[in-house]
């Protein structure tokens, strides 16, 4: 397997760091090498948020994304800030609930109304991150759906299994449609 570099971006409160951790833990379940990191704004809460995950079968030295294979952008600011940094032929998933008119010539741009789906199909916007990570895995197949599901179930609060599985399925389905 090649080295995969993911960048998940948006604003604080969208659960992107959790999404990154889930993706990384799914990779652990599959026995892959993985490094996850994140960047912070000033010490205070509420600003921009960015999580990065690198997955490989070889040992990972440099722990930061050099140029992402896959970018997830969940807010217009994030799309604006990170939208141009992408590997030639890479994939950009944008949350079309908020982001309009996004273009990038180098990459495949996949528009999914992630937050809308969460709101409309599940009724809880906080599962948007799960839809997103599922779509991202669905598009790249970097880990299996089963591993992802296990990782999600390990992380989430008790009692929310059902809606999270539903979110996973929505993301997966959208991804399959887009491939």
């Amino acid at each position, binding site marked *: 397997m090649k080295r995969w570099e993911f960048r998940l971006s948006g604003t604080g409160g969208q659960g992107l760091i959790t999404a990154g951790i889930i993706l990384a833990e799914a990779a652990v379940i599959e026995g892959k090498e993985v490094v996850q990191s994140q960047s912070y*704004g*000033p*010490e*205070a*809460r*509420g*600003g921009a948020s960015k999580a990065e995950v690198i997955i490989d079968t070889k040992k990972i030295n440099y722990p930061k994304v050099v140029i992402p294979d896959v970018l997830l952008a969940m807010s217009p600011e994030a799309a604006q800030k990170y939208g141009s940094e992408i590997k030639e032929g890479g994939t950009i998933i944008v949350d079309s609930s908020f982001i309009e008119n996004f273009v990038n010539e180098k990459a495949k741009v996949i528009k999914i109304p992630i937050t809308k789906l969460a709101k409309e199909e599940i009724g809880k916007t906080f599962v948007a991150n799960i839809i997103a990570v599922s779509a991202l895995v669905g598009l790249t197949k970097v880990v299996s759906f089963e591993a992802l599901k296990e990782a999600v179930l390990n992380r989430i609060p008790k009692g929310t299994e059902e809606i999270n599985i539903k979110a996973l399925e929505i993301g997966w389905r959208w991804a399959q449609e887009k491939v």
Partner: protein
Amino acid sequence: MRPDLQHLFRMEKLPHIWCPGCGHGIITRAIAEAINESGIDLDKTVIVSGIGCSSRAPGYMNFDTLHTLHGRALAFATGVKLANPELNVFVITGDGDATAIGGNHFIHAARRNIDLTVILFNNNIYGMTGGQYSPLTPTGKMAATSPYGNPENNFDVAALAIAAGASFVARGTAFHDKLLVNSIKEGIKNKGFSLIEALSMCPTSYGRRNKMGSAADMIKHLKDNAVNVVTAQKLPPEKLEGKFLIGTLHYKPYREFTEEYDKLIARVQKEGK
């Protein structure tokens, strides 16, 4: 923003970095309003702060502003004021900044009764570092470093300031904006150490962990549990259970440090001793 307050802000620095619903913005506005109404010389006004979410306030305010080190605002401010007693010196600080790492400078500035107007943004938590308990976090409350409930007792910071020597002490809240503005104005007028404890809300790092609901719920909590000192005097003790007092808690002007020092200089220069 109200146009008559805009000149007190660095408008180009807004919006601020505080979270949605953070009480600090409300208190900062109240300070600006108090300064505006008190008519002090804006060019001769310095605002000093430590480190914390609250301590970011001076960066948005249009004065000579000094964002110092965690806990040290009062020591820096003592230097500013003593070196040039002409300046109006304000200190903006948090509960952690003022009473944890800064506790010593706090009691000593109060002891000297040095002419500083101190606004302590009390959100009962270390907001900026993500919600560890502070000396003003009530016993039993949840915080990032008290996952089983805070085992420590908390200070009554107003009582502490009074015992240390402050000549003016008042308490206000982010809800009681007019009272807060008035307390700050009285603090400005008092020639001596003035503490205004301003109860704030931190929905992100305190409210959430302690199931206090939304920012709107938290501000209502401030509204519902405050009792004005004047009213309180007429109430039976049972009625005050679980409540806190707002208004002027202590006012007893006495010798102020920088004035005394100036007298000392005058005496030494005249009489040689």
